[in-house]
């Protein structure tokens, strides 16, 4: 048995099964917190815990799955091109919104974490918390944080935006579906975008584009903003 779970196929198989099962569960019960990715991760962690299998053993196979994050980020560029036409009329305002929103997302989380006096590696791991997981992971590798912490928090941010984003924005007086979509994509990446598509198709398109644009902006500015803020406190 011990030898079997050392095979990469174990990690690959349990990832696929957990994800497929979680998607079926979502079809039956439509709660925001039953986001397939969260359910799949919790299920796999519990499984590894119960059978006393460590993460490195699982990741012998898991790394073949996460390898596809690289080409998936490139694929987002294709998605961006396809949807680009649909936002043309609002392009300047859209880019302004995502750029300012993106910078705000990085700056505020750094400032709050500095004020709350957490260790530096947590700040480095969370600075890119608003952008899509594969990009956030890459940013964290550059800033010196821990990519696994980034992935967990980024997913949590997405679920938060998905579950509460539209409600909060409507309470704050936002009416435009395009504004809600752009905000969800900027602050809560792909998981937020899934919710934006439920608001309207156009909101979803804006959200998906905002996710791509903020991914680039955050990737460009985060290393500098972190350096700047650490320099500022020292």
């Amino acid at each position, binding site marked *: 048995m011990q030898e079997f779970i050392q095979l990469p196929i174990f990690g690959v198989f349990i990832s696929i099964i957990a994800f497929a099962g979680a998607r079926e569960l979502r079809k039956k019960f439509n709660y925001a917190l039953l986001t397939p990715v969260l359910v799949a*991760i919790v299920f796999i962690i519990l499984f590894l815990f119960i059978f006393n299998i460590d993460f490195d053993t699982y990741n012998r196979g898991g790394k073949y799955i996460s390898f*596809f994050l690289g080409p*998936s980020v490139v694929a987002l560029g294709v998605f961006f091109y396809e949807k680009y036409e649909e936002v043309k009329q609002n392009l300047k305002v859209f880019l302004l919104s995502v750029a300012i929103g993106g910078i*705000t997302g990085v700056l505020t989380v750094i400032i709050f974490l500095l004020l709350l006096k957490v260790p530096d590696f947590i700040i480095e791991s969370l600075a890119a918390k608003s952008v899509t997981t594969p990009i956030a992971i890459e940013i964290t590798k550059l800033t010196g944080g821990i990519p696994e912490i980034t992935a967990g928090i980024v997913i949590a941010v997405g679920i*938060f935006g998905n579950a509460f984003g539209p409600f909060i924005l409507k309470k*704050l007086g936002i009416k435009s579906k395009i504004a809600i979509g752009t905000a969800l994509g900027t602050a809560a990446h792909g998981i937020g975008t899934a919710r934006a598509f439920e608001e309207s198709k156009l909101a979803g398109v804006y959200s998906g584009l905002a996710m791509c644009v903020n991914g680039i902006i955050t990737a460009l500015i985060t290393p500098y903003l972190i350096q700047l803020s650490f320099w500022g406190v020292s």
Partner: protein
Amino acid sequence: MLKALAYIFGFLLLGELITYFFELPIAGNILGMFLIFLALRLKIIKLQDVKPASDKLIKYLVLFFIPYGVGLMVYFEIIANYWLPISVAVIASTVITLYISAIIIEKFGK
């Protein structure tokens, strides 16, 4: 499909090569995303040549980051120690980001 995959991996490779040789502080795949967008805009490559692969990759994007999420288990103690400041900072920052981004479109959008 094979051609589309070759393009996607080709641009990924190109992005990685450029960041490697010029020591750019940006990930190769993010540069690859930017380059494939440019190549499509400038009509160097055709949408239908890359779409079969890119659609499939985006469809299963969520699956691909599950192993990183599972990796969080290794850092369970860190999260347990700092869950309160992390939650406060992340939630506050997310709400502010949502609002700032939305209000700009609400005020100036069409």
